[in-house]
């Protein structure tokens, strides 16, 4: 569809090079805008709440950050690769842990591979359908969004509560001096860092930037895309566990909470929604900016009813900024 909504190139191209250097700067440092915004909001937020508890703040920030991280690989892989199923997969991971694994005595670290396997498999299945049937990613992940939300509702019609304190609650408190939020965000980032140091990272960016070129140069486009979606699924699984650490329960009605705000965070972080440009740093700073807006608003005693308006506005603005920053300059002759 990205092609379908591309406006026809009919306007006379009289754009000159004035804004070019600024755009060039943002193309190189796609996360710069989100970073600046985050710093400004952080100062504002510290000014409003001088007694901020950093561990708690980090812990409540972590789920959104991990959701943004989980949305990134699919977006980078191009062709409008928005993975909307991230939210329900996170919830599924929570329900799986709280409602099934922990009661079955599998609440220890052995839960991690199980959750990652299930969620990674869902992600891989998304990718498989997308590349196998040549369907638009949005349509496929929207369908899985419906399906997995339904499954969540089926297996946990009512919220389930974690009865005993397991290792996951450390994700909210901390490991000794180390705030748990750092671990929550650090683990997926580390996995991503390690895996993209290999040629998979380069291939992923190439596929996202221009898949036909990547294909004709001999890159196996399909496996690269599938792995990207599988990674997104795994990260969403981690996100679900992080969420359990924070709230000690799992609720199927929260399925849709993170999907779109996470994509907004990625877009605000400068990652191009058309693929091939951006990365994890942007996702984290984008999420941070959105999180801080929320906390500044609540610290400033903004009425609850205004929140969706501001959220929606933020989504729209961040997507527009992202589109403007990543728009291609004209081909020079």
């Amino acid at each position, binding site marked *: 569809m990205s092609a379908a*909504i591309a406006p*026809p190139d009919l306007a006379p191209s009289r754009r000159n090079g004035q804004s070019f250097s600024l755009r060039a700067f943002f193309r190189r440092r796609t996360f710069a805008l989100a970073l600046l915004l985050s710093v400004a909001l952080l100062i504002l937020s510290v000014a409003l709440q001088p007694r901020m508890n950093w561990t708690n703040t980090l812990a409540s920030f972590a789920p959104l950050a991990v959701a943004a991280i989980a949305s990134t690989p699919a977006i980078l892989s191009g062709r409008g690769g928005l993975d909307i199923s991230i939210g329900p997969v996170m919830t599924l991971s929570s329900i799986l842990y709280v409602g099934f694994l922990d009661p079955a005595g599998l609440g220890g670290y052995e839960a991690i591979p199980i959750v990652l396997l299930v969620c990674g498999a869902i992600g891989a299945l998304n990718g498989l359908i997308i590349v196998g049937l040549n369907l638009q990613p949005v*349509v496929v992940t929207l369908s899985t969004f419906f399906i997995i939300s339904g499954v969540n*509702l089926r297996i946990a019609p009512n919220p389930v509560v974690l009865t005993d304190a397991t290792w996951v609650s450390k994700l909210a408190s901390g490991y000794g001096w180390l705030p748990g939020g750092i671990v929550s965000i650090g683990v997926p980032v580390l996995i991503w860092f390690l895996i993209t140091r290999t040629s998979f990272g380069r291939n992923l960016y190439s596929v996202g930037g221009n898949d*036909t070129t990547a*294909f004709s140069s001999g890159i196996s486009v399909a496996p690269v895309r599938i792995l990207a979606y599988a990674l997104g699924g795994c990260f969403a699984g981690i996100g679900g566990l992080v969420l359990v650490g924070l709230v000690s329960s799992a609720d199927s009605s929260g399925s849709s909470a993170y999907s779109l705000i996470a994509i907004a965070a990625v877009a605000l972080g400068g990652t191009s929604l058309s693929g091939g440009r951006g990365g994890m740093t942007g996702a984290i700073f984008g999420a941070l900016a959105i999180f801080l807006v929320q906390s500044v608003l609540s610290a400033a005693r903004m009425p609850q009813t205004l929140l969706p308006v501001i959220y929606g506005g933020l989504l729209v603005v961040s997507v527009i900024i992202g589109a403007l920053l990543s728009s291609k300059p004209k081909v020079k002759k």
Partner: protein
Amino acid sequence: MTIRATEHAPAPVAPTTVSVPAGRQSNGFARLITIQKQIPVVQLVLLVVVFLVGVVTLPGFGSPVSIASILILSALAGLASVGQTLVVIIGGFDLSVAGFIVAGALMVTQFAQVTGLSFFTALLLLIPVFLVLGGLTGYICHRFNVHPIIISLAMGSIALGLVRVVSGTAIVGSPPAFLRALTSPIGGTFGIPIPPIVAIWIVVAIAMALFLHRTVAGRKLYATGANPRAAGYSLVRTRWFWVGAFAFSGLCSGLVGVALVAFAGSVDSSLGDPYLFVSLAAVIVGGTVFGGPGDYTRTIVGALVLTTITTVLVGYGLVKADQQIMYGAIILLAMAIYGRDKKLKDRV
């Protein structure tokens, strides 16, 4: 089909692309696909089968009141997908449906109560507000070339928020009595024994068919979806069709919200959610593809199929969760049949 060589065609030289007749082996299956492209046969057969299954296995399913209720539910679903159909034809999709429905419902109930406006004043206010909000979605998507999924969802949330800022979070307020008659299964329209909402649906369907196939604007709308660049070269203002389709979709959702108040008797914040799923699913199941071809009559069939299946399944004790799973699976299946993109190797 191939080019038919006419007798007077001068052919001194072999044409550079050689065509052969499609062959007589194009059997029943190929013909079925050709017919399916014209008329949604599979969907109609499915509709009849599911309906008969319901009549046979569920007591009371075939009664006039039950059929009237199915028609009313289908009408609500169908009306919620009028705008969606246009948006899908131009190649987008609109997720603001849920937000706009609740916002529309609140507008004529609580908003009207809090502000002291009459029902009709609130309704008159609703029209321009929803047109603008919807149109803004289309404008932003086209101007900045961004995917409508985020913008439309955000706009739904903004619309709902704006109404709530005035009306407050508490949900009170109820529809005026005359509105209830609109969706009553035992009601009639001007003496004809059809529920008013179904009558409205029929009128809308005829209007849509005329608009899409018999007006210049309808043609241009299809062209916008079929090939936006070629449409641009044909001096179609594609941006305004994006604005128009989304504005219309916003308005429809708002009005369906009003009708839903009447149907449900009260407003709650999840009122619109099922209709978001249904509107998309009805369009896609009917066989309208992103960027066309497609038609509102197909959406009507889609809405009838979905509503009948849902009613039968509810009769068997299925819950909301199962419906969601079903919608997801149906959309995926329908897209796998209709909505494939070009293969990578065909784009090189």
